[in-house]
């Protein structure tokens, strides 16, 4: 073969050692292949460019070129430029983040947030230093966080009604995420149980939660729950919201986990039984590790949904970030800057949720063992 190749004659311009022709490589080739490969494709490209042209220049002008970043009030903003008035966001930034949390105590919220990363680190990454010991801290974290945020035992107490802004979104979101997972797993196992009564109760609960909008459930929690408690008792509104949000998310998680359980081949259950494992043992050692792995994308999606839904607490008068933004709009000095507020908040949520979805992709690829179930 080698003989033939050295002696073979090539037509001019087709020798394999020559650089590829201009139209078959480089930027032009890329454009031709990816943007202009067929007439439909050319049409799509043109349509795409047109859409970008419609959106980007006006938005850039509004959000940056004509925007005002420093001003004392709305009228000053309007006199300085026609674009967005980011000065308002700058002035209100702190209460968007901390809500009504007392200024002198705000370091506690930051510390809580920083510790959160320490706490979830060992859970998320298996090459975390001293992972075993760090896990203990992760288990203790909910108590530490509650202590730091609420005070007492040496710290100035802060009432839950002073929580607000992003802080509140994070508290509701993270608490919901943490506690809904175990409850969701139990519900999913209950739904797959072969005891009819347990199964029916779990199914009813899950379908109820999934059939009713969250705002209705929150409204129930905020106003109606006290009807169902013994006369004269009531407990903290935030606590009720946390419980409702947790139950809500666990209903959805249960369905995600159920999908995972159903994907486990029958043989795995039978193998576990034949090993003489008890129900909980076989679940803990054989079934759940596999089922949870399959369900990870669904679980993370549920978490993202839950985090976004924390904005709905506004309906029952808790001032989360969106609530803070909307109440700020009532300030006579600044009134009428809703687009700025909404876009800033959207950006904040996007950063958090996008990070979560990226992590889910990372996890999926890491856990991919190569064989499909």
């Amino acid at each position, binding site marked *: 073969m080698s003989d033939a190749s050295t002696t073979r004659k090539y037509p001019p311009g087709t020798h394999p050692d020559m650089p590829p022709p201009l139209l078959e490589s480089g930027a032009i080739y890329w454009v031709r292949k990816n943007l202009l490969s067929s007439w439909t494709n050319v049409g799509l490209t043109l349509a795409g460019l047109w859409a970008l042209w419609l959106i980007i220049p006006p938005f850039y002008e509004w959000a940056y070129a004509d925007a005002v970043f420093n001003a004392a009030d709305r*009228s000053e903003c*309007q006199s300085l430029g026609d674009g967005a008035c980011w000065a308002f966001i700058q*002035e*209100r930034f*702190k*209460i968007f983040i*901390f*809500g*009504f949390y007392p*200024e002198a105590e705000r370091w506690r919220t930051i510390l809580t947030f920083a510790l959160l990363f320490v706490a979830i680190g060992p859970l998320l990454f298996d090459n975390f230093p001293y992972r075993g010991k760090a896990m203990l801290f992760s*288990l203790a974290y*909910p*108590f530490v966080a*509650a*202590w730091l945020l*609420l005070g*007492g035992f040496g710290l100035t107490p802060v*009432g*839950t*009604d*002073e929580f*607000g802004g992003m802080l509140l979104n994070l508290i509701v979101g993270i*608490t919901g995420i943490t*506690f809904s997972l*175990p409850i969701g797993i139990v519900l999913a196992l209950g739904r797959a149980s072969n005891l009819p009564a347990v199964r029916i109760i779990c199914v009813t609960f899950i379908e109820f939660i999934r059939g009713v909008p969250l705002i209705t459930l929150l*409204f129930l929690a*905020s*106003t*109606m*729950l*006290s*009807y169902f408690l013994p006369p*004269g*008792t*009531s*407990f*903290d*509104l*935030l*606590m009720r919201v*946390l419980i409702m949000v947790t139950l809500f998310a666990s209903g959805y998680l249960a369905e995600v986990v159920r999908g995972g359980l159903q994907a486990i081949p029958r043989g795995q259950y039978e193998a576990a039984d034949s090993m003489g494992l008890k129900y909980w043992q076989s679940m803990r050692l054989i079934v759940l590790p596999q089922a949870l792995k399959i369900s990870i994308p669904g679980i993370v999606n549920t978490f993202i949904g839950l985090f976004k839904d924390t904005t709905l607490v506004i*309906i*029952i*008068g808790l*001032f989360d970030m969106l*609530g*803070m933004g*909307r*109440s*700020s*709009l*009532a*300030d*006579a000095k600044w*009134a*009428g800057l*809703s687009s700025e507020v909404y876009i800033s908040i959207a950006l904040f949520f996007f950063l958090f949720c996008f990070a979560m979805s990226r992590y889910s992709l990372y996890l999926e690829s890491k856990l991919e063992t190569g064989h499909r179930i």
Partner: protein
Amino acid sequence: MKRILLGATAALAMGATAASAGTLADVKARGTLICIVNSGFVGFASTDKDGKWQGYDVDYCKATAAAVLGDPSKVKYKPATGKTRFTILNSGEGDVLWRNTTWTFVRDVDVKLAFQGVNYYDGQGFMVNKKLGVKSAKDLDGASVCIQTGTTTELNLADYFRVNKIKYEPVPTENNEESRRNILAGRCDVYTTDASGLAATRATFKDPENWVILPEIISKEPLGPVTRHGDDNWSDIIRWTKNALVAAEELGITSKNVEAMASKPGNNPEINRLLGTEGNLGAMLGLDKRWAVNAIKAVGNFGEIFERNIGTKTPVGLERGLNALWTDGGLQYTPPFR
């Protein structure tokens, strides 16, 4: 996992309250007053850049806290929308509602609320752009009307337009801010709410001079504080705190001179009784002798509260009008402190 759950539940439930028979006892035990206010209404209740509450209704909350607990800062504000306010009060999550709420028969009798007088006499009006050339609400046939849903204004509007055989398109929103956006965008031609709300909203416009409030006031909207049915002692406290502030204006007591006047009994026996230098009205309410002094010192008398938050010198720019003292031809009047 279960143990963690229980632990966290216990930790977070620390703020839990166990209510008992009387609201007064609860408030004293708690050390703070929980006051239900509007979630955002210029001049009446809004937050400033530090998240501090301010406004006309908020000052009454402070006065109540000062009267009951001796400290106007001991208030927790519970913002409520038009939709949630009564349920929050009735379920015991707030002690008193100072949230521009209209006193009506059904609310008083059937929704089981207890209204404790009127701290602002209002009426529902209409605001339109001058360009439209509308002179009277009767010219509004076919217009789109912005309203806040869940309020009495919605019901008044339906009644008024039906009686006058005017067709209209209601454009409901949840709060003042959304209505404001709607009318500025031209989604509706006219905004209707309490006249005070119209003025407050107009104050936030770029061009307030181009907007006119029509002469028709189509309803009586006496706004006042609300408590739960059946707690008479607490209701008395709310009612008489509000009265004390009106009486203070009648008697010329202000936040500046109240300390001096309360230091020793003066010539006017009613002032003496009000400020606790004579008799013991405070004890009858179950409060400190200086309850009224504390309230007046904290926020001033009725006139001071009005001028500071919504008076002509503020952006809201409301005249006293019906809310002048009865001696000046208004409706604000208090039963005697005797």
